[in-house]
């Protein structure tokens, strides 16, 4: 069993409306020191795979095929063994 923790972010060239809105709210709540906010997704995927190499390849494929949209997003992930 492996657990992949995948982080998906908007590419820096793409404007992030949610991040901007959150930044605005933080400012109005008195967090004036906030320079920028970017919001992305994190996914935890548990795989029933015995082999780390195989898990790696499969997660990479899932990201490319489904989990991230290459037009606006980029991804990275790390694998952990066990629960």
């Amino acid at each position: 069993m492996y657990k992949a923790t995948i982080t998906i972010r908007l590419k820096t060239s793409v404007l992030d409306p949610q991040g901007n809105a959150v930044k605005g709210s933080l400012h109005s709540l008195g967090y004036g020191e906030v320079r920028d906010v970017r919001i992305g997704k994190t996914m935890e995927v548990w795989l029933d795979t015995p082999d780390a190499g195989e898990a790696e390849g499969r997660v990479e494929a899932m990201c490319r095929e489904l989990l991230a949209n290459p037009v606006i997003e980029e991804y990275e992930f790390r694998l952990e063994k066990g629960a």
Partner: protein
Amino acid sequence: MRFAVPVFPGSNCDEDCAKAVREILDRPVDLVWYKNGNLDPYDAILLPGGFSYGDYLRTGALARFSPVMDAVAEAADRGKLVLGICNGFQVLLEAGLLPGAMRVNDHLKFRCSIQTLRVENNRLPFTGLYEEGEEIRLPIAHGEGNYYCDDGTLKGLEERGQIAFRYAGENPNGSVTGIAGITNREGNVLGLMPHPERAIYGWMGTDDGARLFRSMLRYWEGMHGAA
């Protein structure tokens, strides 16, 4: 001219699209379940609005893998007319049949209202009955209609006349240069956020959407003769 309306789990404008075809064009139309991979009998495909797969992950992302989408890609390839409305547009983007991607509205809220649009190109199969530059009114209803593409893609879209509609006046979602609808290079695939099927009778608040359906029929009859 026969129409197909693919139905995904979570589609909710499928009946509305079928109704528009029946009532405005008086042509046969079938709802086609997403597991069906054969669209051969149809001349035009309307991908309806709604929340296919609950909009989970990204709008349109999960619908793109259904068998019916393979058939849609094939139909598009063969030059059939493909119209994606709202979620249908989002599916077309995710499927790569149209360029670009969708983000959440810049104000982060779902927005339902009747908006003014400008017809940017009336030489498309979908816009023949509008005047170029004409301002029309169509309803929108979406939380993610903030169209994005990079500058190079935008330039290409503009040069090739692929931008069908832009919001005139207020941009309700922050889309790049106010884009409301675009086509593929060939012009036979149109995706747009506004809902023409919700604008076919005056009592709906506007009937400007009816001409979009009529344009499709006229185009097709021009190619195939009335049938």
